[in-house]
């Protein structure tokens, strides 16, 4: 009887999800309520988790709870720590959820709400979650080895090296693009700049407290820190209202870019306990709070989604970034649907802390579903504002013709009515000088979040506080990714440099620390600067580049996963990783080709370089701008070269893997699986992690 009720309940969930999804897909005309998005997403996730992840766990991976996991075999209380599955879920989710699932869907909203929402849900269920889950499983079976080490052992020596280079490349592009998002969020905003600047002394204070006063008491320090951060969000208004202080904190794009570059270098070179770690604690608490508040706010307010399901920009002429839905929607939304970077987390800390193999399903597959839900909420927040306002915030001045009446006329001409006064009033309400041309996703997401939050608490009176809280939340955890990423990049540079000259590889050697920090900061700093001075807004070239590199890394992870499944003899089910891999290779190679060779200067790097060169040759560029234009030409060619190198590296890896697969299938080569030997667990079936004697 219980079984029949269970089946009936799942049928209801499936029908409800299909109905909600159908409403989203087929709805035309009147605005749609956001509740449909929540219902569709949650029901699809439940069905995917209940059926598809169970199928992967049982049929393909054959998870075995009698097998000891790395944390049991190597328990050292440091890296290998048996951890309760709910706690580990929280750890894993906090590690994978960065700015990507918030910014990507916000940018992709230019196509309308439909393509992005469908890709977020389907991409997560069939690709992203599968990647995270399978890589986590593979790493558990290999004592917590990284995806690079697994590529080296299971595919080829060169595969591991390619994976390492791909990680460094993606890290460089990622740090540049998120730096650009912060620059565009803080540009000409004294309130936001002051708030974010103040998080640095707060983090330093916390660092000293945690190191010398109460070592390791993270919770109490974080509570103090969060209270101080909330105070500076409010205090930012006083700074913005003071003419003299306001001048100090009103900074242009280039100044902000150099400030962020200097910050990245400092955070990477300073002891980690002083600045980087306390910022991370602050960011983790505020991130968790803001994400859950956004979910609660959407459920409480149930806003109308004003963006149409498909906009006219599906044809590739979008103002936020150029390019058609295929392939650009699928690389713009990387995190939230599938992100190669997750494979680094799934083969990093998490496999060393997991108690049982069966927990990999809940943690690997489940946490990615939650990240996808964050992406859907970001999509709702972006689409809940009038489309005209969305395009006014996210379009660069070179596309809409600056700000004010002429820009409003351009946007209205696209079919999204907008009055210049609407933008003036909105900027005034949120406490900003202007909201025109603030490309990057963060300001429009902050406007969307602030409208949802203020409809829940405080009304329009608190709109400016909520807006700056949202900006602070986005910028704070973006900078956390930036400083942590710079430090990891520094270690990678030291590792690579250490192969050439051994002393350089010593992580505690100060000259090595300074040089490697400078190298990694110079790498991403160059791309950041390039994005800031780009007349097309920077996001147009850097975000697709980031999406391509991230998805290529996902393709690497899926190549490794497919090879391992093949060696495990799971040929019948190989499509589970092979199809997402093929899809990723298709979209990334198409996007790479278009970004390099497309004839439209807004899409193709080389076409843009050629158009600029033609303008110089025709004498259309003023003499004083020629040097700047030549730099732009060089940057476009550099972007084309980076894209080509990334694509070639991955193609080499795929060809190597395909040769390996052929050898295994044709029995020319013995299939060697580098799994750790089976050791039976000695833990009782109900053991749920380390007990601290308080339960």
């Amino acid at each position, binding site marked *: 009887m219980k079984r029949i009720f269970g089946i009936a309940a799942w049928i209801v969930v499936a029908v409800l999800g299909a109905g909600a999804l159908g409403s989203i897909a087929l709805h035309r005309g009147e605005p749609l309520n956001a509740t449909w998005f929540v219902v569709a997403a949650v029901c699809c996730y439940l069905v995917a988790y209940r059926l598809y992840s169970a199928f992967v766990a049982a049929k393909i991976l054959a998870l075995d709870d009698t097998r000891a996991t790395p944390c049991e075999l190597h328990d050292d209380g440091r890296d290998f720590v048996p951890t309760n599955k709910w706690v580990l879920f929280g750890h894993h989710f*906090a590690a994978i959820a960065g700015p990507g699932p918030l910014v990507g869907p916000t940018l992709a909203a230019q196509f309308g709400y439909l393509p992005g929402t469908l890709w977020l849900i389907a991409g997560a269920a069939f690709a992203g979650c599968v990647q995270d889950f399978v890589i986590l499983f593979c790493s558990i079976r290999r004592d917590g080895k990284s995806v690079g080490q697994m590529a080296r052992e299971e595919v080829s020596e060169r595969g591991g090296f390619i994976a390492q280079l791909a990680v460094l490349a993606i890290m460089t592009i990622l740090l540049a693009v998120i730096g650009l998002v912060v620059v565009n969020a803080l540009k000409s905003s004294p309130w936001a700049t002051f708030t974010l600047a103040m998080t640095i002394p707060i983090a330093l204070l916390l660092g000293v407290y945690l190191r010398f006063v109460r070592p390791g008491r993270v919770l109490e320090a974080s509570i103090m820190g969060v209270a101080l951060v909330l105070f500076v969000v409010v205090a930012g208004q006083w700074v913005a209202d003071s003419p003299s202080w306001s001048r100090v904190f009103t900074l242009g794009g280039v100044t902000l870019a150099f400030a962020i570059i200097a910050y990245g270098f400092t955070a990477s070179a300073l002891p980690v306990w002083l600045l980087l770690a306390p910022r991370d604690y602050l960011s983790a608490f505020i991130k968790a709070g803001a994400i859950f508040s956004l979910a609660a706010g959407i459920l409480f307010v149930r806003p109308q989604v004003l963006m149409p399901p498909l906009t006219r920009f599906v044809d590739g002429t979008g103002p936020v970034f150029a390019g058609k839905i295929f392939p650009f929607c699928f690389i713009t939304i990387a995190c939230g649907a599938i992100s190669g970077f997750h494979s680094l987390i799934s083969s990093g800390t998490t496999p060393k802390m997991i108690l049982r193999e069966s927990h990999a399903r809940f943690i690997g597959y489940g946490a990615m579903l939650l990240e996808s839900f964050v992406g859907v909420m970001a999509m709702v927040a972006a689409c809940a504002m009038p489309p005209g306002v969305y395009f006014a915030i996210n379009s660069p001045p070179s596309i809409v013709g600056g700000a004010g009446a002429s820009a409003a006329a351009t946007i209205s001409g696209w079919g999204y009515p907008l009055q210049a006064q609407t933008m003036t009033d909105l900027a005034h309400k949120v406490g900003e000088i202007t909201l025109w041309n603030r490309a990057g996703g963060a300001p429009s997401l902050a406007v969307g979040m602030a409208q949802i939050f203020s409809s829940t608490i405080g009304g329009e009176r608190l709109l400016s506080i909520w807006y700056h809280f949202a900006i602070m939340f986005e910028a704070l955890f973006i900078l956390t990714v930036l400083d942590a990423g710079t430090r990891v990049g520094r270690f990678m540079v030291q590792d690579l440099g250490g192969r050439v000259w051994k002393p350089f590889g010593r992580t505690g050697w100060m000259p090595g620390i300074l040089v490697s920090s400078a190298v990694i900061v110079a790498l991403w700093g160059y791309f950041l600067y390039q994005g800031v001075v780009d007349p097309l807004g920077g996001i147009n070239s850097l975000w697709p580049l980031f999406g391509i590199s991230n998805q290529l890394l996902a393709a690497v992870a899926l190549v490794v996963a497919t090879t391992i499944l093949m060696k495990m003899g799971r040929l019948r089910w190989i499509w589970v990783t092979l199809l997402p891999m093929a899809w990723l290779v298709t979209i990334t190679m198409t996007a790479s080709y278009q970004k390099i060779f497309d004839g439209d200067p807004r899409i193709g790097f080389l076409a843009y370089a050629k158009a600029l060169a033609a303008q110089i040759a025709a004498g259309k560029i003023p003499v004083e701008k020629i040097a700047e234009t030549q730099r732009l030409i060089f940057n476009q060619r550099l972007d084309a070269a980076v894209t080509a190198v990334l694509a070639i590296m991955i193609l080499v890896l795929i060809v190597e893997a395909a040769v390996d697969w052929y050898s295994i299938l044709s029995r020319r080569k013995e299939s060697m699986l580098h799994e750790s030997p089976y050791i039976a667990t000695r833990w009782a079936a109900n053991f749920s992690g380390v007990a*601290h004697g*308080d339960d």
Partner: protein
Amino acid sequence: MKHAAMATSRFLRRFWRGLREWCGDAAYETYLLSRGRHSASCRALTPAEFYVEQLNRRYSRPNRCC
């Protein structure tokens, strides 16, 4: 009523423990427990030493995603 109060209290205790483990507040206690399980012979790190050593390890590999 008493049963509900006990269940709530148990839930809150678990939640508190989970929160401390999640944010790293309980990391030193976990380390000492692990040492106890393996009767390690070398000197145990002090809370301050453990804190710094743990951070240096954690932030030397990708631990925050995009």
